[in-house]
């Protein structure tokens, strides 16, 4: 796992960056560019476009640094800013570009989950794969929320703000994703994963 920066460092870096410290600016970029890119690519599966959006985001940050305020979580700021840019950049006929807030969130599976439902406990390697399949088969929004909550450790309130939806909707999305995992009654598989991880 990526060594994550402590929030406190981030905050200090942000303060320095606002005063024109280029080293601090570089550090902010280096700390966050990988996860932002990985996140952005899930929402907009076009490498070049995501690259451009991240570059523009950082260029604009630097050029507007004097007008930026002091913030507690630069990481949160970056995620929210990138997500807004991505949704602005989505092609007009992209299903998420229209009414995506009101659309059922089962709309956009990342990949076809079929293999996942075939549950043969062959080897631990296969079972680990299955868990990955579950994750890949999740609708984009469910994955997004899981990632923000479990990987980035954002609070529900922060996630709600990043996605501009209600906090309750965030909780529902997470619940649905976890429920799906449970429904798959992964008993054997999970046991095998357990053996694999612990022994």
């Amino acid at each position, binding site marked *: *796992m*990526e060594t994550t920066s402590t929030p406190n460092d981030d905050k200090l870096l942000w303060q320095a960056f606002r005063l024109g410290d280029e080293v601090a*600016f*570089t550090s902010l*970029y*280096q700390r966050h*560019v*990988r*996860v932002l*890119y*990985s*996140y952005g*690519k*899930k929402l907009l599966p*076009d490498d070049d476009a995501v*690259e451009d959006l*991240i*570059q*523009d985001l*950082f*260029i604009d940050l*630097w*050029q507007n640094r004097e007008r930026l305020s002091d913030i507690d979580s630069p990481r949160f700021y970056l995620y929210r800013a990138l997500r807004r840019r991505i949704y602005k950049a989505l*092609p*007009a*006929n992209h*299903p998420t570009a*229209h*009414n995506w807030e*009101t*659309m*059922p969130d*089962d*709309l956009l*599976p990342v990949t*076809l989950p079929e293999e996942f439902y075939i549950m043969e406990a062959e080897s631990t390697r296969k079972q*680990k794969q299955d*868990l*990955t399949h*579950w*994750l*890949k088969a999740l609708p984009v929004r469910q*994955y997004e929320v*899981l*990632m923000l*909550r*479990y*990987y980035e*450790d954002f609070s529900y309130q922060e996630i709600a703000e990043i996605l501009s939806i209600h906090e309750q909707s965030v909780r529902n999305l997470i*619940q649905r994703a*976890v429920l799906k*995992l*449970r429904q798959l009654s*992964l008993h054997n598989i*999970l*046991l095998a*994963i*357990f053996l694999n*991880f*612990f022994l």
Partner: protein
Amino acid sequence: MSYADFELEDFLEDSYFKEWVSNPCHESVQFWNNFLLCYPEKAEVVAAAKGVLLSVSAEVGDGFPHHDQVALMWKKISYGTSSQPKNQRALWIRLSGIAASLLFIILAAGWLMRVENKKPQFTYTTLVSDSPDQLIEKQNLTDKPIIIELPDHSKITLEPASTISYPNDFMEKETREVYLLGKAFFQIERNPERPFFVYANELVTKVLGTSFTVKAFENDQQMEVVVKTGRVSVFTRNSETDLNAPQNETILTPNHRVLYSRKEEIMKKYLVDAPEIIVCAAVTPAISDFEDAPVTDILKNIEQSYGIAIQYDEHLLKNCLLTASFTQESLYDKVELICKGIEAEFAIVNAQIVITGRGCN
């Protein structure tokens, strides 16, 4: 609540647990081993929670950009930030232009060397010489496009310096097949019984009846397919590819084009430079009860109410009538039910549902 009462969600929310999974230290390892010894019945759920966290983390890690990419992006940001005034920005653009051309030369050189090292398995030359059929070859040696009509009345506009071949017994074969070197625009006569294949190096374009352009010169790094009307399926082949059930197909619709990079062996879908307006229908309410309704109506309703594109052959399916009553089914369940009813199959290709069936009479 103690850890003994924790469920999957609770573990996933617990920061001490998460810390142990992502960043185990001596103390936390001891704590959790001890916990599992005391509560062996929790082993499964702990394993599940751990598995979820690790796979999320692996998935995020999978999406990380390459080190060089991070550096390159930073370079572009630096150029963008090193100056505010406009004329300096122009300098940045000029510089990146020079950098881009240099990069292009390096890449091109690398590509040429690679070609020498590793001959591509499928080129026009190998395809034609490996073909079991006797072929008719047409070459355009003029400097203007020429039009070639195939025995099935499909038309091919062959660009200069391009070549096309097709079997002598074109009409007798189960599928219509042509081999292309270079660039051509195809207007294919509709015939769902006999799909039309264009083989261009390792790129295969499969259509039922539509018009599109294929560009594939033998030494080009990139190949391209652009759709004008209808739908085409594009995929790449290797020695194991089953041409009737390809693994990596991309479905193209008007306003879309696909670029295949031979070096990276990646196919990417793009919009054309000047897409025509596709009017987005206002979201229509889903109808839950259909009685003897044409399948095409049901699919259309699903398509609109879900805002997802569903690809199917309207001519084939319009005679299929279905009575269906939907309640809580998910989108996929609905589509699967419909497919069962008309003995069709569906697949999901690039965020679209593609239905293939023989139709009803």
